[in-house]
């Protein structure tokens, strides 16, 4: 327990976390500090490319082990399944409408890639290795949760007037993050260590620094979101935003044991399960479930769960996975 607390404390005073806090404080204090949209998008492309490439190069170096397929299946199942748990839990805890509940649930089945990136940084700092193909697991978990949410609404007769068409499915499956993550994973896997070496001064050395600036922006956006939606989130909903990651990560741990992942891989699967989407799912919700309120789902995902995972969650999941899987 003290171990976990120490880890958490050490994690809290890293440049990464403090950059997020700086953004949060600046936004809450109503500073006009902003990072241009194009630059923020550029940094997210950089992070996706780098993390995908490194994952692929890792697979090239260590080979594909038998757990790969199992991991991807487990990951897909988690993304499909978690929204049902989230929806039920929200039904018990909050008074949100059917559509709002389903939309929130979709976010928690899907993943936040920055949370994943932050977790890999923590693992690296502690010298814990993990399976390179975990980035493929991340990509697999992006989309299924959206289908579950649409199915929940359809079954509940939620009656959304939103647009669910072929275009929507293409947008979900071929959204930029998935394509870039998978694509750079393959480039890394094909070009291997040699490829990594040529571009390491770009994707490895400055990675932590870019992550700092990116988290500064996340803090700014989360802070502005919290300020704007002040009062809209009830206390029970906020509680959900911290309880759900714990449930998600527990199921992630179970899945990791089933798939036979290493302690590092298990920590990452726990993090993925615990994290909530704030890009792919919100975009899909605007099209498919326009009645769902972004001030609920985005604030919860970005303003509550993201900081929760960043500060408390990741060290906790790492400690638990090392204790249980590594034991």
């Amino acid at each position, binding site marked *: 327990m003290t171990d976990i607390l120490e880890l958490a404390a050490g994690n809290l005073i890293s440049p990464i976390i403090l950059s997020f806090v700086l953004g949060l404080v600046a*936004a809450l204090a109503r500073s006009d500090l*902003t990072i241009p*949209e194009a630059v923020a998008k550029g940094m997210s492309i950089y992070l996706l490319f780098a993390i995908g490439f490194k994952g692929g190069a890792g697979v090239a170096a260590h080979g594909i082990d038998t757990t790969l397929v199992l991991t991807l299946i487990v990951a897909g199942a988690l993304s499909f399944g978690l929204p049902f748990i989230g929806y039920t839990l929200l039904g018990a805890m909050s008074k949100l409408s059917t559509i709002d509940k389903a939309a929130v649930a979709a976010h928690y089945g899907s993943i936040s890639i920055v949370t994943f990136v932050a977790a890999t940084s923590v693992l690296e700092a502690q010298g814990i290795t993990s399976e390179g193909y975990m980035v493929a697991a991340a990509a697999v978990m992006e989309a299924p949760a959206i289908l579950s949410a649409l199915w929940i609404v359809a079954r509940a007769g939620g009656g*959304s*007037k*939103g*647009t669910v*068409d072929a*275009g929507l499915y293409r*947008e979900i499956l071929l959204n930029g993050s998935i394509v870039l993550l998978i694509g750079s994973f393959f480039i890394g896997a094909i070009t291997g260590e040699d490829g990594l070496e040529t571009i390491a001064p770009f994707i490895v050395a400055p990675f932590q620094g870019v992550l700092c600036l990116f988290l500064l922006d996340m803090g*700014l*956006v*989360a802070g*502005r*979101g919290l300020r*704007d*939606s002040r009062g809209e989130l009830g206390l029970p909903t906020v509680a959900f935003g911290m309880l759900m990651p714990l449930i998600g990560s527990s199921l992630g741990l179970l899945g990791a044991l089933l798939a036979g992942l290493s302690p590092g891989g298990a920590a990452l699967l726990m993090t993925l399960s615990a994290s909530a989407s704030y*890009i792919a799912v*919100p*975009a899909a919700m*605007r*099209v498919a479930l*326009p009645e769902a309120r*972004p*001030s609920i789902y*985005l*604030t919860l995902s*970005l*303003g509550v769960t993201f900081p929760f995972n960043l500060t408390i969650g990741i060290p906790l999941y790492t400690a638990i996975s090392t204790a249980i899987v590594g034991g």
Partner: protein
Amino acid sequence: MEMHDAKRVEIIIEAALESRLTTAMRGAGVTGYTVLPVKGGSGRSGQWSRAGQVTRGSGMVAVVCLIRPDRLDALLDAAFAVVEPHIGVVSITDAQVLRAERF
């Protein structure tokens, strides 16, 4: 300079629906339009801005369409079908255009 009557239709809509709107417009025979970026706004669904990209995925756009008056109804029907379930506004102004053969 010879001028010709036209209607200027301005549709403010979520960026995620832009391609659906323009597809519907083409379906209604409207092939000329211009898309302007939007920096922020406020409406019944609250306030948002590009800087605090939190309350709406990728923001909104303004689609401006100059059209011959007799084709206005077809355009509005097509546009409304896309806009209706979503947030956003549609406005129409009387206008005149040069080079009528382009419309």
